């Protein structure tokens, strides 16, 4: 390396700089923060960098994602970013992947290649995924994010700090159907209603579903009150008249007159505020001018500045015009999906929500405001990204340089607090109740193309892991339910069918992350499934060794020979070194108890390869039931206490 890094060496010392150069760093995301982080890494002397991003470059990125130029629009972010930062240091060894980090391509094995992960993501779901993979791999993670002027950097490390999911994440607000449908009180309620109306009218089957119809009643329903059977039915006869006059008049009358009449009749809603008053199109426009006005409306859309508030009449004109156009478009394309960047779709939602706002005495909004509210847009600011990325680098260097105890969480504020915009705080301890990080991670290697679900459940989960009545979840689905007491015949029959399936053909494929719980024990572990053929080939060889080395084993149980073949391997996750020892001790005790009662475990214990069953799981509240095994000690136990085995077996049958 040239002198260009002399300042780095002076600041951080030769040793730290060497660590930097030798480290392997994974950057996830090559967007606003990602670009800055990549540039920072390369300039600081990092050499081995992988970058993953699934996005392609959009023209709206160029103001802040400075590694990209106009001619890159449409190309993958990760690849272009790699080429751009290589110009800062051509010797850097950068692997760029245009792909989704949530896919199997980037599995646990992939993550384990790195020393450090820097996440520069823009969505919660990917962050959670990365959080879990890093916990699972025991990798430190620098997590960062910005929203407008605000930003945050924090460090996540299993067993040392809070993880991303230690506390519930705030969820975007959603409005109850009742408010949207009958009783709006804020502009956003009308905007949500207008988006639902869009789905109802133009969504087609693609975007339909009767869910959305909650916001709007049946288009042909003109019953204002009463019922047919009682003979006191009141109908809005005008609706049919309007329908004859054309689509846009029909829609307008239905949603701004008929439906409003119905709502106004619900006296209970309007005790404390003014009831809405239905609109009459004829009163707003001159009947004969409608066709011409719609053309004017078209021009208006183009001429008006987005930030100007439309007059009420303009809104009505835009609404009529857009309704007609969208109907044609929807018929042509067999259903539309609302898109904030589509001019006509946005104008429709803007005008419809403003007209409804007027009816309910709610302030109207400009097209610009509606766009940001309806599209949930948070502005991105380049400066914020740059500040946050600088902090990401600082924290990364601390971690790589072995100064983890100096790491901080840092918040960037909009207003200074005690004359500071940056507020560092110390890292929080993990939440002992966290359902993500206070959980054990183990890996199970086996041949998923051969082993059945039943064998997996009975031999591995029940016998080796001492899970009594396993309940398995993958993603959003419950894939296996143990426990018989309360299941009905059908449910048990269904389970039998599942047990017969081959793992790989039923959700338990290579790379699956399955959550294993017990129906009664307070036990929970996350298992990564890894497919391998290695045992099939090894079995023969190992048997020979076994015979040579372990005469005792041979005598011990003749009839078990067949089952003695090693066909799976369970590996505990890398826990933090500081508490690992303690954990192992704790766990070993429980394990001996857990294992002794299980005669099939001979197959594991007798295998001369010590790694045959090395489950290192962290000691948590649930450890009582977890299997953490130190093979050597167990083996010794068997060697010395042969006689006790039969007792132990008895114990099992007793229990």
């Amino acid at each position, binding site marked *: 390396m040239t002198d260009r890094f002399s300042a780095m060496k002076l600041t951080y010392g030769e040793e730290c700089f060497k660590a930097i150069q030798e480290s392997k760093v994974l950057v996830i995301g090559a967007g606003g923060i990602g670009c800055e982080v990549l540039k920072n890494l390369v300039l600081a002397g990092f050499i081995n960098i992988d970058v993953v991003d699934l996005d392609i470059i959009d023209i709206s990125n160029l103001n802040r994602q400075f590694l990209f130029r106009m001619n890159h629009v449409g190309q993958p972010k990760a690849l272009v970013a790699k080429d751009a930062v290589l110009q800062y240091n051509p010797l850097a060894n950068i692997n760029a992947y245009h792909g989704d980090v*949530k896919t199997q391509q980037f599995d646990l094995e992939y993550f384990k290649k790195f020393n450090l992960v820097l996440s520069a993501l823009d969505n919660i*779901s990917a962050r*959670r*995924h990365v959080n*879990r993979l890093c916990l699972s791999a025991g990798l430190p993670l620098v997590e960062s994010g910005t929203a407008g002027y605000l930003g945050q950097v924090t460090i996540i490390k299993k067993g040392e700090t809070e993880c991303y*999911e230690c506390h*519930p994440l705030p*969820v975007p*607000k*959603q*409005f*109850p*159907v*009742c*408010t949207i*449908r009958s009783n709006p009180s804020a502009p956003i309620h009308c905007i949500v209603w207008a988006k639902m109306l869009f789905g109802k009218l133009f969504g087609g089957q693609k975007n339909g579903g*009767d*869910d959305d*119809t*909650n916001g709007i*009643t*049946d288009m042909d329903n003109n*019953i204002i*009150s*009463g*019922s047919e*059977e*009682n003979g006191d039915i009141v109908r809005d006869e005008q609706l049919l008249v309007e329908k004859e006059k054309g689509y846009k008049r029909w829609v307008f009358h239905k949603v701004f007159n008929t439906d409003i009449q*119905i709502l106004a009749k*619900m006296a*209970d*809603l309007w005790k404390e505020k003014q009831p809405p008053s239905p609109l009459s199109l004829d009163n707003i426009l001159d009947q004969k001018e409608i066709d011409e006005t719609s053309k004017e409306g078209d021009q208006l859309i183009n001429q008006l500045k987005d930030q100007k508030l439309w007059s009420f009449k303009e809104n009505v004109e835009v609404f009529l015009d857009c309704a007609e156009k969208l109907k044609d478009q929807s018929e042509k394309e067999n259903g539309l999906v609302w898109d904030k960047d589509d001019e006509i779709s946005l104008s429709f939602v803007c005008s419809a929500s403003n007209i409804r706002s007027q009816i309910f005495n709610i302030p109207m909004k400009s097209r610009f405001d509606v766009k940001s509210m309806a599209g949930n847009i948070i502005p991105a600011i380049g400066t914020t990204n740059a500040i946050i990325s600088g902090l990401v680098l600082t924290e990364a260097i601390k971690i790589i340089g072995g100064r983890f105890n100096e790491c901080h969480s840092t918040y960037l504020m909009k207003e200074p607090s005690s004359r500071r915009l940056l507020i560092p705080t110390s890292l929080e301890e993990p939440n002992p109740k966290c*359902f*993500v990080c206070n959980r054990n991670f183990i890996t199970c290697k086996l041949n998923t193309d051969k082993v059945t679900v039943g064998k997996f459940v009975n031999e591995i989960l029940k016998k080796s892991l001492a899970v009594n009545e396993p*309940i398995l*979840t*993958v*993603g*959003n*689905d*419950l*894939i*296996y*339910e143990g*426990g018989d007491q*309360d*299941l009905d015949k059908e449910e048990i029959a*269904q389970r039998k*069918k*599942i047990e017969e399936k081959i793992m790989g053909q*039923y*959700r338990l494929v290579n790379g699956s*992350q399955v*959550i294993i*719980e017990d*129906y009664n024990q307070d036990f929970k572990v996350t298992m990564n499934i890894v497919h391998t053929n290695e045992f099939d080939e090894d079995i023969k060889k190992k048997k020979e060794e076994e015979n040579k080395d372990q005469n005792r084993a041979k005598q011990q149980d003749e009839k078990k020979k067949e089952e003695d073949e090693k066909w799976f391997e369970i590996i505990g996750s890398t826990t933090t070194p500081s508490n690992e020892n303690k954990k192992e001790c704790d766990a070993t005790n429980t394990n001996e108890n857990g294992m002794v009662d299980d005669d099939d475990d001979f197959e594991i214990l007798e295998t001369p390869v010590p790694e045959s069953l090395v489950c290192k799981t962290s000691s948590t509240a649930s450890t009582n039931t977890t299997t953490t095994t130190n093979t050597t000690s167990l083996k010794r136990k068997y060697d010395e206490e042969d006689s006790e085995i039969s007792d132990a077996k008895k114990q099992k049958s007793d229990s």
Partner: protein
Amino acid sequence: MAGISSARLSEERKNWRKDHPYGFYARPTTNTDGSLNLFVWSCGIPGKKDTIWENGVYPLTMEFTEDYPSKPPKCRFPKDFFHPNVYPSGTVCLSILNEESDWKPSITIKTVLLGIQDLLDNPNPKSPAQQLPIHLFLQDKDEYVKKVRQQAKSYPLAE
């Protein structure tokens, strides 16, 4: 990737299996491969004894989102279910199912089902959701009772 929501739902499933009110049922729906979808449950609510709803078990679908339990599930009876607080689509309008009023993450599936059972015989005229039932409920009780009893017959107790 599923998070708190699926962890909570699998907990709900466990708790329901261990203990649930008499006459009710609630179970995640079955996927084509035989696994259970934790995010959509099919449930049944029995009408209370000695009310006009008795002798019926009313099928209800509960749909959860990734934001559960921060957000309530959506509860739906069959389309056009006859009740003043049920929308024509079948969606139940009830304060404990409303994020802005009484929903709390601690509310369990059991609580929700018991709440809806209670709502059956105690409609709330202040949040009307369907015209005919609310109209009859307020102005023509006899006809209302007739309709409810008729509906009970179409959802008979199993076996």
